[in-house]
């Protein structure tokens, strides 16, 4: 039972353009959402998060949008840079829980 899904396994975008990564979840008990970035042979690093009481959080080039009614969140990267080429994971946390549930990841390739 995949509670967090990233339906696009890969995304290719031109440098300078916008990258939009999508994530859907099924469990309405999730109250906190995070995005992680992972380079090959390295551990994932935290990118940005959003609480379920918000619908948008912005940090520099990265913005996360949350649509609770649709159980959908997205990550926008603008402008995209070649260094953004990586695998991006969305993750969700349940209130009073002890663990994150991760999506399957989206591989982003930013072409110069």
């Amino acid at each position: 039972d995949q509670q967090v899904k990233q339906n696009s396994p890969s995304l290719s975008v031109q440098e300078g353009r916008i990258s939009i990564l999508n994530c859907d979840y099924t469990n309405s008990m999730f109250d906190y959402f995070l995005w992680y970035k992972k380079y090959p042979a390295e551990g994932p690093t935290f990118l940005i998060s959003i609480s379920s009481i918000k619908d948008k959080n912005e940090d520099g080039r990265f913005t996360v949008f949350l649509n609770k009614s649709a159980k959908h969140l997205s990550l926008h990267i603008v402008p995209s840079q070649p260094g953004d080429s990586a695998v991006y994971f969305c993750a969700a946390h349940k209130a009073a829980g002890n663990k994150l549930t991760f999506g399957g990841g989206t591989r982003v390739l930013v072409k110069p």
Partner: protein
Amino acid sequence: SQTIHQWPATLVQPVGSPLSLECTVEGTSNPNLYWYRQAAGRGLQLLFYSVGIGQISSEVPQNLSASRPQDRQFILSSKKLLLSDSGFYLCAWSQPRAGHYGYTFGSGTRLTVV
């Protein structure tokens, strides 16, 4: 500041051999600790997590086990490795509190079972 150490970085082991991967966290106390595996081309699968010494929760049935002998030490083990145990293993820690539920991951161990 908190740091997480995971070793070794790479490991090649024959089928049927034992496994021991170690993870330690510095600069914090009573963290939640996690072991994840990323199989080739796949997502992050939670294997085990621990909220305290000696407390281990297993997420999936498998050939692996975990132990937490000390507060900031988390060990992943196997008595006999299978080919399917190959993958990228990640240790992580967290200290959940309101608005701070993220993990900090180690640098990972690439395990190849041959």
